[in-house]
């Protein structure tokens, strides 16, 4: 059954309609009864008055005179009633309106039958004689204390009916008016209640859609105003609490987002629920894969079997675990330290949003992974290890040679002047080499630890340190018939430490000369651009393989170990260059193609 307001309204309307209808029918019936009662009593009174006047029926019956008929006609004319006299056997003795000759026996008429049983008969029906609605009253007629016949009076009730119709019309009009008024008020009030409900509904929908804090106002009915007030309060309270929660959430979000550690939250099936920016950075395709709107599994996003195995392990053990693993990002290997903690994602409070059914039996937990990129640390660690072993190795090699040759000299070679001079030269060379290494180490250490005050900085033309460097390198280059060409304007003024820049340039140009074939060219050019000057030193040497490039500035790192040492390098030249460039607030980068040559670019800020 419909329970809407309008359906209810319609039902009440029907109820009112039917009660009014019943009331109307009752009143109408009563009214009709009353009128008939009145007619009856009128007719009865008249019959009582007329009865004594009726001529003796016995005699007229016997004599066959028409005395009774004449009497009827006379009375009938005077009273506008129809008067009939009927003998006991039903023979009509006289009638005011009709010819008695043609009238049938009347003892079967209901009112006559009643009268013959000594009662006053009354009935209402269509007269077969006259063809009108008549009210009939029949009274037993006593003459000389003997029942002699029946006196029947009749009058048409057409006129009574017309009065009755008029009254009925008025009643119907009145009832319709009441009904209409009821309907109108019901509709009006119903409409206002509906409006109030709509206002409440609208307010509830606003709250649902997330716009809180709006006031709800209702004029009618008073009962709903309380509800509206409560809703306003509720909405404001919700606004306040949500503000509170979202502030807290934003804070947490910001913290999470700006953390350097990658944080990944996984659900029970190891799908990524969310991750922070640092986690997205671990992925090659940051923007695409960081999209967590779709449910995606850890394996499909991070593509690491070891990370997935680790997460599954944490889940299985149910306690915090730690591990180190390597991770491939677009060809480079990252080392990651990872902590995994099992957590219950859906709170024990049985939170509102617990859509997931707890899986039976398996108490699997969600997992929070925190990843630390330790590639740099690993690398530094490796570099330190390499450094120590390199230093020992680099110093050990000449010392071994020196001791070896000294021992040879001791065991007799000293007596052969030719041999001895030769050996002493070798010993000297190795001694110088060690000296060179120690010098380089010292200058590196100085560069690293000393703060170079502003006092050492001078504003000079780039040409000054460059020419000084070229003076050092030219003789070696000429020996290999290598041409050094200069392009561009070297009179740019730079704020640098000239002595250090000179050393850096010497190291770079010296390398270029060392690793170039005879008869090639070295080109040095300078290009000013937007407050910077870019110095390029390009050789046509053997070049550096791409995968070695990132490491060439490391101490003792050699691309080709044997060859470098043969050429008398300490393995520290480029490390020193890097530090000098840093101290001078400049920048260095290198481009190289294996087999075609190497270019070093140094970018200075213009003074």
């Amino acid at each position, binding site marked *: 059954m419909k329970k809407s307001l309008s359906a209810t309204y319609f039902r009440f309307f029907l109820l009112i309609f039917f009660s009014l209808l019943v009331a109307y029918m009752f009143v109408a019936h009563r009214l009709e009864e009353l009128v008939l009662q009145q007619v009856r009593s009128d007719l009865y009174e008249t019959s009582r008055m007329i009865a004594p006047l009726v001529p003796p029926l016995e005699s007229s019956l016997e004599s066959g005179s028409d005395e009774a008929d004449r009497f009827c006609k006379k009375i009938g004319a005077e009273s506008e009633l129809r008067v009939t006299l009927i003998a006991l056997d039903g023979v009509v003795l006289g009638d005011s309106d009709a010819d008695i000759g043609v009238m049938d026996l009347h003892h079967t008429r209901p009112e006559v039958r009643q009268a013959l049983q000594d009662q006053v008969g009354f009935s209402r029906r269509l007269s077969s004689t006259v063809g009108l609605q008549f009210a009939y009253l029949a009274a037993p007629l006593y003459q000389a204390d003997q029942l002699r016949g029946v006196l029947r009076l009749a009058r048409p009730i057409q006129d009574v009916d017309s009065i009755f119709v008029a009254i009925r019309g008025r009643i119907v009009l009145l009832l319709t008016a009441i009904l209409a008024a009821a309907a109108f008020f019901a509709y009006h009030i119903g409409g206002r209640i509906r409006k109030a409900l709509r206002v409440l509904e609208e307010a509830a929908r606003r709250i649902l859609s997330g716009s809180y804090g709006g006031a709800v106002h209702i004029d009618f009915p008073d009962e709903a105003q309380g509800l509206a007030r409560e809703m306003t309060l509720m909405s404001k309270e919700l606004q306040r609490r949500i503000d509170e929660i979202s502030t807290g959430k934003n804070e947490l979000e910001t913290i999470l987002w700006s953390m350097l550690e990658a944080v990944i939250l996984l659900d029970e099936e190891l799908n990524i629920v969310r991750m922070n920016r640092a986690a997205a950075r671990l992925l090659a395709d940051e923007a695409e894969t960081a999209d967590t709107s779709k449910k995606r*599994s850890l394996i499909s996003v991070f*593509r690491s*079997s070891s990370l997935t195995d680790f997460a599954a392990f944490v889940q299985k053990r149910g306690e915090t675990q730690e591990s180190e693993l390597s991770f491939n990002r677009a060809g480079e290997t990252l080392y990651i330290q990872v902590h995994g903690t099992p957590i219950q994602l859906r709170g024990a409070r049985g939170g509102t949003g617990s859509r997931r059914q707890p899986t039976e039996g398996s108490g699997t937990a969600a997992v929070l992974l925190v990843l630390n990129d330790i590639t740099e640390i690993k690398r530094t660690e490796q570099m330190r290890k390499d450094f120590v072993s390199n230093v020992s190795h680099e110093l050990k090699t000449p010392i071994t040679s020196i001791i070896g040759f000294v021992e040879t000299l001791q065991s007799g070679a000293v007596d052969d002047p030719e041999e001895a001079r030769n050996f002493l030269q070798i010993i000297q060379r190795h001694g110088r080499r060690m000296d060179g290494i120690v010098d380089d180490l010292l200058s590196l250490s100085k560069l690293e630890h000393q703060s170079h005050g502003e006092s050492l900085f001078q504003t000079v033309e780039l040409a000054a340190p460059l020419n000084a460097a070229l003076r050092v390198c030219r003789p070696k280059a000429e020996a290999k018939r290598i041409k050094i060409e200069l392009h561009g304007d070297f009179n740019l003024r730079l704020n640098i430490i000239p002595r250090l820049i000179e050393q850096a340039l010497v190291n770079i140009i010296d390398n270029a000369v060392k690793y170039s074939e005879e008869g090639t060219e070295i080109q040095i050019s300078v290009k000013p651009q937007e407050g910077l000057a870019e110095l390029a030193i390009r050789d046509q040497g053997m070049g550096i393989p791409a995968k070695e490039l990132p490491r060439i500035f490391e101490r003792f790192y050699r691309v080709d170990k044997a060859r470098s040492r043969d050429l008398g390098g300490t393995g520290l030249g480029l490390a020193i260059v890097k530090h000098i460039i840093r101290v001078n607030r400049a920048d260095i980068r290198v481009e190289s193609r294996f087999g075609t040559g190497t270019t070093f670019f140094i970018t200075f800020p213009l003074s």
Partner: protein
Amino acid sequence: MPGRQHFNKAMNEVHQNVLQMGVLVEESLEKARRAFEEKDLVLAEKVISQDHKIDEMQLLLEDRCTILIATEQPVAADLRVLLTAVKIVSSMERMGDHAVHLAKTTRRTSQLPNLDRLRTLILPLIVKGNDMVKDMLTALANHDAELARKVAGRDDEIDDLHRELFETLINFQRENPEYALQTTDLLFLIRFFERLCDHVTHICEWIVLRETGEHAELS
């Protein structure tokens, strides 16, 4: 419908396990590539010794798919997913074997500097092959039939590269008969990588079949 839920969970697990196996293969190939490029014999040995993981995964997955087909009697899309999973894992297992081949070739050839030039020439083929594997896995993970078609389209490039390398290697072999054995190794290697890319293409076809129900001839 708890039965259905259970089945869906199992289906998702199959998908995740196939991905996991794919990642294992990808990692194995990548390690083998690095070992080849950097002459890292320790890494090459690792690739060879870890291959059994991939083989075990294949058996596990084939069993699971068979059991699911037998007990759940899946129809339409679900059946397609399971059948293609079986095919995909068998191709993946072969790809894992190719990673082992690469590692073994590294073991046999890396100590010969005269082969360095050939190795540098072969490297792009390996890198391209590994890139195809990587993108194929992305298509598999993301149910991306479009990407699968694109990846399969790259097979032609590989074929051309393979032909070129074949010529170069044969010429080298003719000129340096003392390296006949190693050159043959390298010839096999490029052949295997050409096969690897065919496997990738097949898997791409099955991805398209799984996602769209169409039999695509992508090679």
